[in-house]
């Protein structure tokens, strides 16, 4: 462990997080199973469920930086800022994706089984959330796009990074942090592809906006998706810089 970056130390940091802050790693899977068990048989919108629980893990990671006593403890753990950031990213992405997929399978199977028991129906488990074609959000709405699980993860990762940015970047300004966070959530939810579709269809209904017909209807969500994927590593880099410059 002589170099400035060591995967062994990243492993030690992950182990530290899993043992010292074990509650979210037990609580989040349990709550996700319950949520998926309820949502899947009813074909309900599961996005908020994933966003919400996806934030808990990174929210806990850098929360101590807001307090000078615990920040001293975190910042002086013998590991580089890059290793600390990497451990958090792995827990927020790889670990969270595994937790979500696993809990979706368990929750959906259990939920559908219970649903069939109660209603006496013979409904099949709806796997569309994790299938390539994706699921219809608010299925009754004919203009809704199909949302794939990766779309949800992409937004979750962006939200995770934004909450980290707020936690590391601002000092003792809780109201500003809360306001910033809520604003960001609203903007991001509004910026999702299905909202674009809705707005797009609404605009094109009006004949005075014929110019818009020249744009390929599918191009806007694609661009949003690409930008969404590009934003994630950029935000990681910004958060790393903020962590490197973090002082008490």
């Amino acid at each position: 462990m002589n170099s400035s970056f060591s995967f062994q130390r990243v492993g030690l940091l992950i182990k530290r997080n899993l043992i010292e802050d074990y509650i979210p790693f037990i609580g989040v899977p349990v709550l996700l199973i319950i949520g998926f068990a309820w949502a899947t048989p009813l074909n309900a919108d599961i996005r908020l469920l994933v966003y919400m629980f996806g934030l808990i893990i990174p929210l806990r990671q850098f929360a101590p930086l807001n307090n000078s006593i615990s920040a001293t403890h975190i910042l002086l753990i013998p590991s580089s800022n890059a290793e600390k950031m990497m451990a958090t990213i792995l827990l927020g992405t790889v670990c969270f994706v595994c937790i979500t997929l696993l809990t979706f399978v368990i929750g959906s199977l259990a939920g559908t089984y219970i649903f069939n028991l109660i209603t006496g129906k013979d409904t099949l488990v709806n796997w569309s959330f994790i299938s390539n074609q994706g699921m219809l959000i608010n299925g009754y709405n004919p203009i809704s796009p199909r949302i794939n699980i990766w779309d949800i993860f992409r937004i979750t990762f962006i939200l995770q990074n934004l909450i980290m940015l707020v936690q590391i970047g601002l000092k003792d300004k809780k109201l500003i942090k809360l306001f910033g966070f809520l604003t960001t959530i609203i903007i991001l939810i509004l910026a999702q592809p299905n909202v674009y579709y809705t707005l797009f269809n609404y605009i094109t209904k009006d004949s005075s906006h014929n110019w818009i017909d020249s744009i390929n209807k599918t191009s806007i969500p694609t661009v949003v998706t690409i930008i969404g994927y590009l934003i994630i590593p950029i935000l990681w880099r910004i958060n790393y810089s903020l962590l490197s410059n973090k002082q008490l």
Partner: protein
Amino acid sequence: MNAKMITIDNVEFTYKKNTQLLSGLNLELYAGHIHGLLGKNGEGKSTLLKLISGLVFPNSGVIDTIGFNPIKRKPEMLREIFFLPEELPQILLSIEKYEKIYAPFYPKFNSEQFDQYLKEFEVYSKHDKLDKLSQGQKKKVLIAFGLATNTKLLLMDEPTNGLDIPSKAQFRRMVAAAITEERCLVISTHQVRDLDSLIDGIIIMEGHEIVFNEPIENITNKLLFKVSENNEKDETVIYTENTIQGFCQVCENISNKDSRLDIELLFNAVVTDKKRIKQLFSK
């Protein structure tokens, strides 16, 4: 001469604009010594320790901590530093788990030493949760852990706060035994009596700068600490304090007499007449 551990060159630091906390700070500390960092409240003792460990960054000037720029917080540096803050963080782990999680970050950590230090501090159960312990007990565990890390540099901010009287004596014994030619210890404290017969160098901060940094040997060579029944006012007297025992005085040691260092008296003498003390030690 032992290895240089800390070099601070013309460092300026401020938390807020227009309020200079530290200015023109210069300091060199070497391995093999236990330094006592003394100063009134708000003089910047804790901030100095934070600057050395990279928790805050200087506005200007250069700091070298065991050969590294502390603001980079490189693991190669951090694994050779143990910082015991005045206020301890909330740790929801048992002592055993704390050791299991944090010891691997310190390559020279010695588990047997840790057990021995805990035993000396009369902390017998490693299954106790740290957040369930009293502040004093928690401090004992972290002092024991810090000593067992065998890091080159140990920074302790008010380590004896919250310790009972026998534990303070135990602390002095343990620290004295733990110092080696490769290690350097900086202890910041208000409770100067707790450092009696422990430290071998004294750093005093006054007016947001380091006004005094001398080894004990030098101090007792140049200054005479005495108690007299009469308030003698000859030219050699630098500082006098009226106490129950009589007039405690700090004088110039012109006759090269041996005397026992009184840290509190020295501190008051430096704060009261720093110009004269500076002149005397620059000779």
